[in-house]
């Protein structure tokens, strides 16, 4: 028992767990856009960064305003920011109710911003196809990151900002991290349920019809423009929630630390490994990658004694190889996409039987 507690409270394990939960949310949102809607979303980082800014800078300012603290330019000032945030934290630590409300408000702001980003992204998504669209979205994401990095009044620029800790009421030290990880896991689970029900709904089927045969979907009266925009809005909102949770968990925001490899290409790799278009596959893919990453992390020092290179590069090598091998040998992923049945299979069988009797 003590061993298990030790393992759970190991900061490394916690780090892996929270990474897995966050990437699960981001990869699931990517799967909605790529797997279901067929939009080559190479700008996943965009919504993630915007969500992080929404939770870190905008919700943070709202909290400062709520508690009567300076919330203008002073809030992101590098000398004042941490003082203001520590005052907010003093308020939050004593009131679990307010903390939870603030968490919900932060996520709502992030989701709204992510949705707006998704709506804006639908402008090129209607005009461009395939790789051209992918590159355009990638350019947007990099541009947003550059602005976040250098425009100080937004979120502290290169210095970054400290973010109010809405999880502080859970406890101190490792308990705070464990509790917040559980909350993030729970939100990830909710996202999974939501997207799974979406996949089974008429909307999910319309998206897949659009992906497989756009003309046929049009013939059946589906508005392609609207469907694409809706998928991008929902996907953007969910990815923004992922970014917001990451920023709230780490307690700081720095645009510098967001890059296209971590927040776009890794989710792509997770998705391709698990199975594009299959939500359960996404969970599996993220789980596998998180475990392997944790193993590389855990045995870093041991590895360094055998090989004269930094084991960090093994991670890149591994993800690169997985992307290549999956693309070459198993494009459908570990768990291939299955047709989602709108009603239970038994019911379909009984309807079939009654039909054949009647005929």
């Amino acid at each position, binding site marked *: 028992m003590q061993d298990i507690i030790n393992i759970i409270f190991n900061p490394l394990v916690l780090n892996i767990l929270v990474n897995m939960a966050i990437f699960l949310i981001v990869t699931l949102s990517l799967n909605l856009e790529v797997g279901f809607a067929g939009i080559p979303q190479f700008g996943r980082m965009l919504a993630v960064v915007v969500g992080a800014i929404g939770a870190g800078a905008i919700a943070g300012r709202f909290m400062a305003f709520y508690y009567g603290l300076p919330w203008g330019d002073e809030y992101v000032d590098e000398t004042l920011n941490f003082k203001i945030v520590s005052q907010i934290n003093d308020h939050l630590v004593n009131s679990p109710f307010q903390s939870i409300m603030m968490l919900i408000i932060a996520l709502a702001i992030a989701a709204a911003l992510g949705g707006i980003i998704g709506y804006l992204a639908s402008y090129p998504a209607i005009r461009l196809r395939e*790789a051209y669209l992918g590159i*355009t979205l990638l350019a947007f994401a990099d541009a947003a990151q550059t602005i976040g990095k250098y425009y100080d009044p937004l979120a502290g620029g290169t210095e970054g900002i400290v973010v109010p800790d809405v999880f502080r009421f859970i406890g101190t030290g490792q308990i705070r991290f464990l509790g917040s990880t559980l909350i993030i896991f729970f939100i990830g689970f909710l996202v999974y349920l939501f997207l799974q029900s979406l996949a089974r709904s008429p909307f999910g089927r319309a998206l897949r019809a659009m992906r497989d045969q756009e003309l046929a979907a049009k013939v059946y009266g589906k508005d392609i423009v609207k469907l694409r925009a809706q998928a991008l809005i929902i996907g953007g909102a969910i990815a923004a929630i992922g970014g917001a949770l990451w920023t709230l968990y780490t307690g700081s925001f720095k645009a510098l630390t967001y890059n296209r490899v971590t927040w776009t290409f890794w989710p792509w790799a997770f998705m391709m490994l698990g199975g594009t278009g299959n939500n359960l596959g996404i969970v599996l893919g993220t789980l596998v990658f998180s475990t392997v990453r944790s193993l590389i992390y855990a045995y870093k020092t041991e590895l360094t004694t055998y090989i*004269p290179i930094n084991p960090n590069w093994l991670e890149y090598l591994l993800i690169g190889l997985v992307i290549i091998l999956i*693309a070459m040998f198993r494009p459908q992923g570990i768990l291939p996409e299955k047709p989602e049945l709108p009603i239970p299979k038994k019911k379909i069988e009984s309807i079939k039987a009654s039909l054949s009797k009647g005929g």
Partner: protein
Amino acid sequence: MLRVYAVLVQLHSSLKFNYSGHERRFKPSLWEVMILIDIIMTAIGYSSSIALAAAGITLIYMATGTFNFAHASMTAWGFYIVFAFHKVFFKGLGNPYMYFPIAMLFSGMLGVISYYFINRWLLKKGADMTTLMMSTLGIDLVFFAFINMFADFLTYNYKINARLIVLKMEDIILGKIAGFPLRAITLVSIIMVIAIVAILQYILNRTKFGIALRMTIENPSLAAILGINPDLIYLASWFIGGALAGLGGAILSLVYSGTPSIGNVVIVPEFAGSIVGGLYSIFGSLLGGYLIGMSEYIVINLIGTYVSRNLVVYEPLIPLIAMAVTLLVYPQGLGGIDWSKVWAKLRGKKEG
């Protein structure tokens, strides 16, 4: 990169002090003119590097329909090969230009490996454009991992800092003006671009291979009927594309100081050059690369001088905006412009 900003900021401050009150007359000193010339020369070297790599991206895209993200690491490998041979293996023997062919060959071989083991397989299976692009991202991550391992290897075995490379000082100095060295890279890079244009022009228009290449690009099945092996043509375009990336990286090594992740920085202007050039014309992409590279330096210089010095840091936005706007508004790019018509129009106006 930061060093360049520092020089720019220094330059702008010195320019501002030279506005003499109400007259606002600009009297640059020799030193300031030299800094300006230095910036322009660096800009030319940088732009040549971007232009060559952009031409490589376009060639690979034209031949196989693959947007090659691995160009980032191929450029970085060209960069590191010149450094490793000049500084580490031969300890500053001769000059860095001697190792340019090795850099080209090495990156060309990376292209061959990418094609032969991965891209060929996917093309045969009829993979879609997104899968092709994603596979090159995987290739890029693998090459990126190897370049970092190589840098670690150099650091451990030769006790040299291989994670921050400065080769600028090793360049041949053509002469000095007021204590300012005139480095050879500007001239050499221009000569190399002209040579590449001439060689490609000759190969594409005069040799049997070039005609086969153009034919395969336009109509692969018809070319196959006439007994042209598309496999060989694709292999050749990956090799040439990779070699151009390697040459771009080699030139870059004498312009920029860099880290193993330099590829992630230059891939954006490279792609922008290729897209602004129109994606279906090698010479358009060379032009696009020059346009992007020069505007990164010169537009930011103008903005810094006339609008605000604080905006200088937004330099990475220029290629991104150019790329997005070209794709959304004018997807044919520069290569899509019929220059003979434009010329005729201009002439007609002059006459009329």
